[in-house]
């Protein structure tokens, strides 16, 4: 049980770091990068995406793993006497509910960028970009809640689990 508790703590820390990085990256993207390519499509998209240079693609570096790490951390807290399980459970549930939306968003914006670069931009894609931008802020808000729940899990990690017996 000691090893399991240490592992749960380790994965909770990794998940918190990952969600912090995820949230910061997405906020940076929304504030500093999205306005560059989305203000006047398709011209602004062509000028921004014409020469892609990156060290590592941020979105694929964080997106599948952040959800998995939270799930592993939560699974490890099951049957442990720790107050963090409930918080991690909520965080993981919200994250996995958000995941299909995130996948849809990645596919959708990838399709718009791909079509634009091939010269197939259509006027109705402006609405898609607008919807994507709003949903991007929605996922950022959701990720803020998820990160907060991870922090509450850390705060309560050393507290005993709240059971009905203990409450009564």
């Amino acid at each position, binding site marked *: 049980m000691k090893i399991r508790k240490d592992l749960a703590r380790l994965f909770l*820390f990794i998940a918190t770091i990952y969600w*912090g990085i995820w949230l910061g*990256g997405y*906020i940076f993207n929304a*504030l500093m990068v999205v*306005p560059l390519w989305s203000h006047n499509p398709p011209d602004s998209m062509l000028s921004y995406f014409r020469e892609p240079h990156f060290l590592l693609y941020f979105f694929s570096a964080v997106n599948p793993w952040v959800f998995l790490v939270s799930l592993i951390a939560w699974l490890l807290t099951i049957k442990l006497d720790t107050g963090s399980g409930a918080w991690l459970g909520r965080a993981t549930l919200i994250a996995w509910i958000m995941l299909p939306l995130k996948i849809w968003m990645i596919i959708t914006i990838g399709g718009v960028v791909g079509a634009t670069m091939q010269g197939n931009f259509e006027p109705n894609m402006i609405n898609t970009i607008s919807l994507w931008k709003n949903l991007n802020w929605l996922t950022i808000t959701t990720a803020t809640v998820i990160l907060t729940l991870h922090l509450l899990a850390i705060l309560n990690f050393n*507290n005993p689990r709240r059971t009905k017996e203990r409450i009564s």
Partner: protein
Amino acid sequence: MRKRIAAFLLMASIAAWGIWCGGQVFNELMVVPKWSASPPETIKAFNEIPRKGGAPFFVLFNPLFVILAILSAIFAWKWARRSTKWLALSVVIALAVFASLMLYLVPLVGSTQAHAMAGDLPAAEIIARVEEWKFGNRIRLLVELCGFVFSIVALHVWSAESNEVKDRQQVRQANNQTVMTETVGGKYENS
């Protein structure tokens, strides 16, 4: 009440550290390679991209994570024992990062970009300055990530020992009550 404020500030500080580090990681992986690929031409091309909307990430979050690191340490210090070193490390790193940015990295990248736009420095000089900035920026990023991890450890250790402090206070209060009962009652009984 103060303990709750301390817990809230510690959590807010970690969130601000995370957002700041995440933004810097994104910048380092996705944005810096774009304008630094072949300076000074790529710097000019990047700065000439028209932009509309958005907000300055650096101006918003740089003061925020430093202020929250300091405030959380001040409020949490009363209950801190072993966590003092993590709280102190988090504050020292936040201040060091802030100073390195304000005194070295921001002026360096600002002047490099201005010279690249004006075209009044040889390309080799611009390239050397960009490489110097990238090296310094990566070191800063590594130090920042340490600060982020230390702030998480601080919350974890602090939450455990603040409960211990509370328990010790409860035991002390219970002992005081026992002594008072003995004195007032004049007989030896365990309350």
